[in-house]
């Protein structure tokens, strides 16, 4: 057979395929979200959010899991954000452009792709065992912060280097020192980028299960966390447990837990996305 489609027709076919493929990519995501909302909505109540689990988790609320996740995540971000931003400032503004710096930059970019479960192993070996923190909020937070460090450094470096070099030169030429230039010109202009990156990081680590699996999370703790060295329940781990390990679990509680986790994560991502669009619009240069 020897026939050729006219360019017009082949363009039409191709466009149709592209539209269909976009629909195929987008629809399942929306379906997942709709399924979770539809099935989990009935479980959602003030009581569900603020009480302890009962009857082997088959009833009651998920308060300890929510608090546990908040504790781990807030500790993690408090560690990783300042260290990561400082490291980014160092690499972007101070480090000499030599082979060592280039290797370090490369390593940091590539570490962002290392599986989270591998960070879990690292956390177990270093923080839980070697440093003796045990399975605890602290060990989990440190593990998550090490995992997120490359991401924070990379986004912060992106934000810093998007500030035009000429701004720095203009400031130096006025007799302003390097650090003062960073503080008064570079950082204020890089801040929106750094903050949206930080919010996305919070969202990401809130949903991570594998890194806290053996460093912080507990199957069930009958009381709320009291210190940094306590084991805690955590929302993503709790969801994993109740959906795979507990027989005869009421469906709406599992979906309700998934819904709470999803709302937490997606709302933060949404804030970051909207903030980024906003800052891009009002950006002055």
């Amino acid at each position: 057979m020897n026939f050729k489609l006219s360019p017009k027709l082949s363009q039409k076919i191709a466009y149709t395929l592209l539209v269909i493929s976009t629909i195929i990519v987008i629809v399942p995501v929306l379906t997942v979200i709709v399924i979770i909302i539809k099935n989990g909505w009935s479980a959602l109540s003030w009581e569900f959010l603020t009480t302890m689990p009962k009857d082997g988790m088959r009833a009651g609320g998920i308060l300890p899991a929510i608090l546990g996740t908040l504790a781990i995540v807030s500790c993690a971000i408090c560690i990783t954000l300042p260290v990561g931003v400082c490291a980014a400032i160092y690499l972007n503004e101070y480090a000499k452009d030599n082979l060592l710096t280039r290797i370090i930059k490369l390593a940091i970019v590539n570490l962002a792709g290392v599986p989270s479960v591998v960070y879990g192993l690292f956390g177990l070996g270093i923080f839980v065992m070697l440093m003796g923190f045990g399975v605890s909020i602290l060990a989990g937070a440190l593990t998550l912060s090490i995992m997120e460090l490359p991401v924070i450094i990379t986004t912060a470096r992106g934000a810093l280097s998007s500030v035009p070099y000429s701004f720095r030169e203009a400031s130096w030429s006025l007799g302003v020192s390097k650090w003062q230039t960073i503080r008064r010109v570079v950082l204020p202009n890089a801040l929106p980028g750094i903050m949206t990156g930080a919010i996305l990081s919070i969202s990401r680590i809130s949903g991570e299960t594998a890194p806290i699996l053996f460093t912080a999370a507990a199957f069930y703790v009958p009381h709320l966390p009291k210190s940094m060295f306590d084991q805690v329940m955590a929302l993503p781990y709790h969801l994993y447990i109740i959906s795979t390990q507990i027989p005869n679990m009421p469906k709406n509680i599992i979906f309700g837990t998934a819904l709470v986790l999803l709302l937490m994560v997606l709302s933060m991502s949404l804030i970051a996305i909207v903030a980024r669009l906003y800052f891009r619009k009002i950006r002055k240069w």
Partner: protein
Amino acid sequence: MNSKITDYIIEKIIFLCGIIAIVFVVLIFGFLLKEGFAFFKEYGVFNFIFGKYWYPSSNPASYGVFSLIIGSLLVTLGAAIIAVPFGIMTALFIAELAPKGIRDILKSIVELMAAIPSVVLGFVGMVTLVPLVRSILDIPTGLTAFSGSIVLGFMAMPTIVSISEDAIRSVPWQYKEGAFALGATKWQTIRRVVLKAAMPGIIAAVMLGIGRVIGETMAVLMVTGNAAAIPTSIFDPVRTLTATIAAEMGETVRGGLHYRALFGIGLVLFTITFLINFIADLFLNKKK
């Protein structure tokens, strides 16, 4: 002069943080290397990589990860077959055809997609997709490599779509204009000029997507069935490298051979993903 001193101290703190971050980067690598190599020395690299049986609790225990590697590869391959064509086509649509308003919305949705925790996707896959696969294909269990591939395919898509889209949009408009001037239709231009120019970036996107799939843990743990045997087809249950670590680390004796075997798996995963990222990075830099 007071402010001079503060400046000095702050600069030193910045240097210190830079060094701390770098030390940890080196530490991760060194630590995995140490633990992994200790295990390899005791058990043998060949026995570990090519051993067919992963029986950590039998006597004597055997720690061959060949079936796990095959499991990971099978699930990854399936996911790639799903995610790559759809991902690239969607990226083309977003970059070249969608009007600006729709483009922003689609990009935001793709980003939200990337934010959904894998344990949530695993759970939804488990309660919707797995029964569906079982009843449609009429097989004993829906917990198969196939189900894992579908879930992971969707997890790879955001990466592939957003990075490909970047690559496609960064093709200089002069290229396109040249093709239009020769009388090519828009689609011919996209196919022959844009795709070709954006190819390094698209390859990088695919590799990063695949890297994400290989490292994915919770979703595969929940939908692939976790049978540590070499699968005969994509409709068999499989167990991946990541799932093995997640499922067994809790039960091992700290410091024992089994424990160190899991670190050996960690080292394998680290090496694979680091290499994939490294190569993707080369492609991304080539683009510039």
